[in-house]
């Protein structure tokens, strides 16, 4: 595997240029920059509706220096499939790889059907879902990726509610169940790991899927300087395990020498702050800790024991 190192100056490809309208400290903007850094120039990118499309392409400007197309909210996977099939038909498959970069709403809720179709047909596409755990672009409405206990505008915490109730969809397992050859989870907090996984996914023949956890300082309500630190805490507490699944086998799990309690992650963000104030909050935190413990058990996250 290639080792990525930023040397600055001319070695940075800078394919996602400055001047985009993402909030200060946006995790997604960092992720997209790193994805393109790893992918290189010979890619065609498809993005559905979402923050990424809004901040990067106010006509007549664009922040992209690679071919990029905006699809509808639901059909990034279908548009990417069409591009890949078109390249194949024209005998130009070797010229570019197709990449779809979509948010959690466009992947896990609205575009789930087209994504399933793309997996089934076996197109040679790398699909990356950047998961900031709600519909941030329209004002922090909950999605099926919003974690339990988080307050969103459509699952607000209050006197009778502790926020989101349902667990996150296990997107990686959904992809694995389709027989996708390369599936990985990544975090924007581990930039070099993310770039390595993107390179692997692109080099893999057939569909590949990366589920990428990115913090959103606006929706998660934390200072803009903490984006990377908090994304990293999700990994260190066991709430966001990093692993790869190659041909159905779990490989390359990021193990933790000392797993942190989930409070360390929850207390950094405004969307969980009610858990530390409201009655019964400890019980919800205990349930969230149980999710982390189950992850640790399933993936063998703990180094000792």
């Amino acid at each position, binding site marked *: 595997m290639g080792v990525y190192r930023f040397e600055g100056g001319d070695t*940075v490809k800078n394919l996602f240029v400055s001047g985009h309208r993402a909030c*200060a400290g946006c995790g997604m903007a960092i992720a997209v920059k790193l994805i393109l850094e790893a992918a290189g120039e010979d890619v065609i990118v498809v993005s559905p509706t979402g923050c990424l499309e809004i901040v990067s392409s106010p006509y007549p*400007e664009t922040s992209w220096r690679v071919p990029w197309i905006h699809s509808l909210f639901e059909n990034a996977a279908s548009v990417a499939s069409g591009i890949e099939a078109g390249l194949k038909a024209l005998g130009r498959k070797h010229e570019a790889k197709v990449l779809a970069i979509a948010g959690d709403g466009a992947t896990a809720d609205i575009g789930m059907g087209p994504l399933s179709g793309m997996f089934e047909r076996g197109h040679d596409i790398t699909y990356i879902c950047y998961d900031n755990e709600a519909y941030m672009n329209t004002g922090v409405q909950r999605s099926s990726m919003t974690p339990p206990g988080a307050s969103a505008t459509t699952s607000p915490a209050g006197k009778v509610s502790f926020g989101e109730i349902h667990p996150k969809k296990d997107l990686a397992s959904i992809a694995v169940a389709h027989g996708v050859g390369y599936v990985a989870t990544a975090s924007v907090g581990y930039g070099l790991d993310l770039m390595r996984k993107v390179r692997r996914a692109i080099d893999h023949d057939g569909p590949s899927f990366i589920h990428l956890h990115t913090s959103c300082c606006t929706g998660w309500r934390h200072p803009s300087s903490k984006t990377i630190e908090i994304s990293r805490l999700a990994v260190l507490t066991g709430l966001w395990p990093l692993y790869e699944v190659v041909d159905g086998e779990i490989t390359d799990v990021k193990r933790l020498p000392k797993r942190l309690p989930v409070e360390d992650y929850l207390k950094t963000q405004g969307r969980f702050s009610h858990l530390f104030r409201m009655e019964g909050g400890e019980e919800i935190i205990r349930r969230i800790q149980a999710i982390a413990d189950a992850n640790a058990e399933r993936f063998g996250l703990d180094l000792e024991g």
Partner: protein
Amino acid sequence: MKLRIGAIADPGTSIVNRTGGWRSEKPLIDHSLCIRCFNCILYCPDSAVKYSEKEGIYFDYDFCKGCGICANECSGRAIYMVMEEK
């Protein structure tokens, strides 16, 4: 505004949008503490941290939105934020 066929835009044109005006704090660097880990370049959302052999790490204040990630991720604690007055 006249739309081109397919609403095509020329690559990298958002560079005309100088986002530096969004900033309330700006990053500064103490070069003697910089260990050249390049975390600041890696994690800058706006590609506003640059490096050259001669100048070391420097900031493109035309685009820096002042988020403070570079200072937070700095391994050598060389980067710090100061309130900016305009």
